[in-house]
C-alpha cells in the first residue's frame, strides 16, 4: 500500500482499525472513546465500524479500567487502553505496576500480559499542571513494563501495532501536540506486517559535529534545531529513541563515537530522567574515549507546568533552547 499524508491521530486510528480487523482478541476501552470518539478524537468512527463490544466506554475510574484490562490480557485478550490524559494514570498505578508488570514473572512465565496503555501527555496546550505531564520515566523505571514514544505519524502507526503484537505490557507515550502533525503513512494491512518487535532508535539526520538524542515531540524539535544549526555550519546527528524501555543505545554510542559530543533533550523533567540514563549509558560505553566535552541535557520540568503561556513555554525545551545548548557545546574547544 502506498503512503498517504495523515496526522498522528489518524495514523493511530488507522492502526487501531488494523488491529481490530486482524485480531478478534483486540478491543479498545477508555473514557469517552466510543460515542464521543476520544478527548482528542483519536478513536473517532471506530464504534460505528466495530461495535460497542470491542470499542468500550468505561466509568471514570482508571483503576477499574486498567484492572479490567490486566484481567482480560492474562485470559487471552489484547486490550488497547486509553488514559484520557496521561496524568490520570496515577489512579491506575497498582494494576499497572504491581500486577501487569509482575504477573508474567510471578506465574513462572505461564502468563503474558499483552496490554497496551496509551498515555496522551505533554505540555504546550495551556492545560496546566494536572493535564500536561510527561511521566514516561516512571514506567521506564519498572521491570516488566515496556515504554515507547513515537514522534512521526508512521512511527505512531507502526509502534502501536508492534505494541499490540508484543506479549508484554507496553506504555504507549503520545504527545498531544503531535496529534495534528502530519506526515506520510503507509497503513499496514495486518498486525503481522509489523512483526519485528518494538523498533529501536532511529537516525533522523546524520552529522559529524554533535549528536542530539531526543524522543516524542522533542525529537521533532531536535530535527528543527539541527536545520538551524546547519545554517551556522554545525552538522548534527539527530537520533529518535522511539523505545525508552528497552533503550536502544547502540546507535547513540556509535554516533557519539563519531561526533565526540552528546546533547540529550526531552520535555520530561531532567532529574532521574531518560536523558540521565542515555548519558550514563554513553559515558559507560566505548564512546567514553571519544568524548570531547561533557554531555549536556536540555530538559523541561523545572516546576509543575504553569498555566501562563509564557511560563509554560519556558518550562518546555524549545527549538531555540536546543540550538543554544548545541552552540555552547560546540564552543567548547576540544
Amino acid at each position: 500500500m502506498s503512503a498517504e499524508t495523515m496526522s498522528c491521530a489518524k495514523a493511530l486510528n488507522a492502526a487501531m482499525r488494523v488491529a481490530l480487523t486482524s485480531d478478534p482478541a483486540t478491543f479498545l476501552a477508555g473514557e469517552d472513546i466510543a460515542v464521543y470518539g476520544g478527548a482528542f478524537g483519536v478513536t473517532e468512527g471506530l464504534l460505528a465500524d466495530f461495535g460497542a463490544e470491542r470499542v468500550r466506554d468505561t466509568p471514570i475510574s482508571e483503576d477499574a479500567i486498567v484492572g479490567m484490562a490486566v484481567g482480560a490480557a492474562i485470559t487471552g485478550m489484547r486490550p488497547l487502553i486509553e488514559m484520557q490524559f496521561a496524568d490520570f494514570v496515577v489512579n491506575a498505578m497498582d494494576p499497572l505496576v504491581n500486577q501487569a508488570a509482575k504477573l508474567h514473572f510471578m506465574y513462572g512465565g505461564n502468563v503474558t500480559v499483552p496490554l497496551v496503555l496509551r498515555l496522551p501527555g505533554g505540555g504546550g496546550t495551556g492545560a496546566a499542571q494536572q493535564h500536561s505531564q510527561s511521566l514516561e520515566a516512571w514506567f521506564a523505571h519498572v521491570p516488566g513494563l515496556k515504554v515507547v514514544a513515537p514522534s512521526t505519524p508512521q512511527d505512531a502507526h507502526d509502534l502501536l501495532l508492534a505494541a499490540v503484537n508484543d506479549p508484554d505490557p507496553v506504555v504507549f507515550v503520545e504527545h498531544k501536540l503531535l496529534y495534528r502533525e502530519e506526515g506520510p503513512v503507509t497503513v499496514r494491512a495486518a498486525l503481522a506486517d509489523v512483526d519485528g518487535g518494538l523498533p529501536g532508535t532511529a537516525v533522523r539526520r546524520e552529522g559529524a559535529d554533535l549528536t542530539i538524542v531526543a524522543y516524542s515531540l522533542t525529537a521533532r524539535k531536535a530535527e528543527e534545531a539541527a536545520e538551524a544549526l546547519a545554517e551556522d555550519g554545525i552538522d548534527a546527528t539527530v537520533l529518535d529513541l522511539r523505545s525508552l524501555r528497552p533503550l536502544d543505545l547502540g546507535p547513540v554510542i556509535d554516533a557519539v563515537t563519531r561526533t565526540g559530543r552528546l546533547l540529550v533533550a526531552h520535555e520530561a523533567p531532567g532529574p532521574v530522567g531518560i536523558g540521565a540514563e542515555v548519558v550514563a549509558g554513553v559515558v559507560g560505553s566505548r564512546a567514553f574515549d571519544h568524548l570531547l566535552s561533557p554531555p549536556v541535557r536540555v530538559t523541561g520540568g523545572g516546576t509543575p507546568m504553569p498555566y501562563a503561556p509564557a511560563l509554560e513555554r519556558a518550562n518546555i525545551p524549545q527549538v531555540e533552547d536546543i540550538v543554544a545548548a548545541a552552540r555552547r557545546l560546540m564552543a567548547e574547544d576540544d
Partner: protein
Amino acid sequence: MAELQVRMPALSATMEDALVLSWLVAPGDVVRSGQPLAEVSTDKVDMELESPYDGTVDRILVPEGERADLGAPLLVLTSDEEDLLGGLDLDGDAEEPAATPAPSPAAAPAPTAAPPAAPAAAPAATPAAIVTSPLVRRLARERGIDLHTVTGTGSRGQITRADLEAAAAGGSAPSAAATPPAAPSAASSAGSAGSSPGNASRRRAIRAATARTTVRSAQIPQFTLYRRIDAGRVNERREGRSWSTELARALAAALWRHPECNAVWDEAQETVVPLPGVRVGIAVDTPDGLVVVAVDDPDAVAPAQADAAVRAAVDRGRNGRIVPEDMQHVSTTISNLGGLGVDRFNALLVPPQPTILSVGRIVESPVVVDGHVRVRPMMEVGLTVDHRVADGADGARFLETFVQRLEG
C-alpha cells in the same frame, strides 16, 4: 569540613620569597585541585600557583603586590577533603625545597606549582591534575605521550586536541599564540607589546629580575673567547631540527668532556663545586622580556627527542609558563641573536652558570680550504667564561671540543 592552608611553594632551588602579582580567585569561589589560584613572581619566573586541593576559598592572607616567604600561608580553603597534612609541622619543613630537581623534564609535573613543602606522607593531597577530554586522554595513551608534559591552551586551561597534536609533532601548539593568556610568539613580538595589566606586571617583574641578574653578573670576572665555525655540516645533518637543538647537543657533549667548565664557584667556601649533571639553558626573547628555559642533557637522548624537548621549552618561555626546572642546576645558556642579524657578541653570564654561548648569524663567507678559496656558511660564537671557575685555556679547550662536534 577542614581548613586547608595553601602555602608559598618552592618554585626554584634558590628562591626565598615571591611576589603575589594577582589573585585569580576570591573568597567564596569554589576551586578544584589544579586550578590556578594566583600569579606569583620570583626571579624571572612568573607562575600560576595552582591549588593542591578541591575546596572553597575562605580567605586570602597575602594581598596583591606583597611578597611572601617560602612556606608562608597564602590563602585558606575550606574543604570536605580530609586534611592529610593535619598535625604536620609545615613551617619546620618549609626549608626543605619541595621542588627537588627532577631527573628529567619529561617526568616533571608541568607548570603545576609544587605543593607547599608536602612531605611524602601526603601523596593523595597533591595530585598533578590533568585537565582534558577523554578523547585526548585516549590519543595520548595510544601515542605514548605523557600529558604532564603538555601545556593546555583551552578555555579552562584544558589540554585540547590541538595541544596534543602539537606535542606529538614536537612543536608548540599552533593555537597557543591566539589563546589568551599565552603571549604572542617572539617572532611577532616587535611592536606588539601587550597592553593587559597581566602583561604589564609580568614585563615589570622580568625587567626587575633581569636588572638584578645582570648586576650580579657584572660583579663576576668574565672573559669571552670567539671562534668562527663552518655551519655547513650541521645544516646537512640537522634534518629540520632547530639550530638551538644542534647547538645544545654539541654544548652538552663538550660539557661532559670538560667537567672543569661544568661547575660553579662557591663564594663562601672559595672553591669550585661541580654541577650534578648537564642541563642546557636557552635564552628566549618574549614580548615581556628575556626569559631562560632549560632542557635536560639533550645529547643523552635521540636527536628528535632532544628537538621536541627544546621546542617545548622554548614554547614554555614564549607562553610565560616557566617551570622550576628551567632554573635549577643549569650548566650553560645559549643566547642566539643571529636571527636578528648580529655578527658576534659576548653575552653576560647568568649567575651562577659558569659559561654562556653567544651565537651570531650565519654568513656565506670566503674561506681557504686545502689551499683553495671556498664559499662556506660561517657562524661566529662567543663563549663567555667565569674566570673564577675556569681559565682561558680551559675555555679554549672546551670551545675546541664544541667546534669539532659541529664541524666533524
